[in-house]
């Protein structure tokens, strides 16, 4: 293929056990084990756990870069949710994880951006760490994980939103269910609304919105100018939902995302990209221009607002 699209993957993670505490992984493994056992397969939880751990074997993203090249993915946004407050079996502190992400960005120049999460209950230290990651390390946005125990419009988050507004940085949040060790009910999309209204200068991205609460997410995208959706999760729940999403008049709001390494057993990044066309994710009515918006132009527009980086670029001229 000569005209490989310059895709931006707006939703990925570093494939390493350091980023996902054992308890978090254990919950995922429980669900897999129930499914496999129900089919009468000769499984044990321990074996499923080892298979699952086999997907978290790329701490420096060397393999991911190879797969991005194959798939025509120019850049990936690495999301760093902070599980360390809610899940006490985390092996690394959030400071250490921030440092590790910085190392990965430097190892692969131009390939990765980082959205950093700090649990708002860490108080002043957490806020200082967040500001350092944004201002000193030039991370590109904020990642939130409400299932850890807070709502998107919680007052505790407002000091973080002030920083994001100051530098025009996007905030991406997990939406809906996740590992069963965490809370699901608190992660509903509607909780973004107050924050989105109070901070019109921040773009809020609702992750997995084509599969979790798709109607509510589309409604919010339609009516609130600064609310967006990423489609990660389409790998598991089929592409029919995506086809519907693309016909809802919000193609300027939809961002491509794979959620690497979550669907690693489902195939390489290339096959996850190809799956979209092959399984009819794109309606016939969808224009090439809209496809470009989906694969990279929406993402580039959101990332391009970053005032720290634009000031840097201007200074370099």
């Amino acid at each position: 293929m000569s005209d490989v699209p310059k895709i931006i993957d707006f939703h990925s993670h570093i494939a390493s056990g350091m980023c996902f505490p054992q308890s978090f992984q254990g919950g995922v493994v429980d669900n897999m084990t129930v499914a496999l056992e129900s089919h009468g397969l000769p499984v044990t939880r321990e074996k499923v756990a080892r298979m699952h751990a086999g997907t978290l074997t790329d701490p420096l993203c060397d393999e991911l870069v190879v797969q991005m090249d194959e798939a025509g993915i120019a850049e990936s946004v690495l999301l760093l949710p902070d599980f360390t407050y809610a899940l006490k079996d985390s092996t690394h502190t959030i400071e250490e994880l921030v440092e590790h992400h910085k190392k990965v960005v430097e190892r692969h120049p131009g390939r990765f951006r980082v959205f950093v999460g700090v649990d708002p209950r860490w108080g002043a230290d957490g806020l200082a760490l967040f500001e350092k990651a944004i201002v000193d390390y030039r991370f590109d946005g904020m990642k939130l994980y409400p299932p850890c125990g807070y709502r998107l419009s919680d007052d505790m988050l407002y000091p973080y939103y002030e920083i994001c507004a100051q530098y025009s940085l996007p905030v991406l949040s997990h939406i809906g269910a996740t590992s069963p060790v965490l809370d699901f009910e608190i992660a509903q999309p509607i909780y973004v609304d107050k924050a989105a209204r109070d901070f019109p200068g921040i773009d809020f991205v609702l992750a997995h919105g084509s599969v979790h609460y798709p109607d509510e997410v589309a409604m919010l995208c339609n009516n609130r100018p600064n609310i967006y959706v990423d489609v990660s999760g389409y790998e598991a729940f089929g592409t029919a939902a995506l086809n519907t999403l693309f016909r809802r008049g919000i193609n300027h709001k939809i961002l491509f995302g794979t959620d690497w390494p979550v669907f690693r057993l489902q195939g390489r990044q290339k096959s996850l990209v190809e799956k979209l066309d092959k399984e009819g994710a794109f309606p016939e009515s969808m224009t090439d221009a809209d496809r470009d918006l989906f694969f990279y132009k929406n993402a580039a527009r959101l990332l391009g607002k970053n005032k720290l980086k634009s000031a840097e670029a201007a200074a370099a001229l």
Partner: protein
Amino acid sequence: MNKGHVSDDEICRIIASTIAQKAAKKGVSPEMSLRGDLGVDSLTLMSIVFVLEEKTGIDVFGRVEEFVRAESVADIIKVVRQS
């Protein structure tokens, strides 16, 4: 069944017994891709590995990473052979 004696055909049959009926009807052969041709997803890949372990006595745990990387039926056969 001794792993030394399991043939390519037998491995293909084991895979066919695990994947969706619709895909299995066309038959399973080594050059087929797991996802593209056979529609294998995460849980199906795990199922294939567990059934292979049970029927061939292979050591799954020593080879988890290779199974994660497997793209084709031939890749699976290779991992079983090396186990």
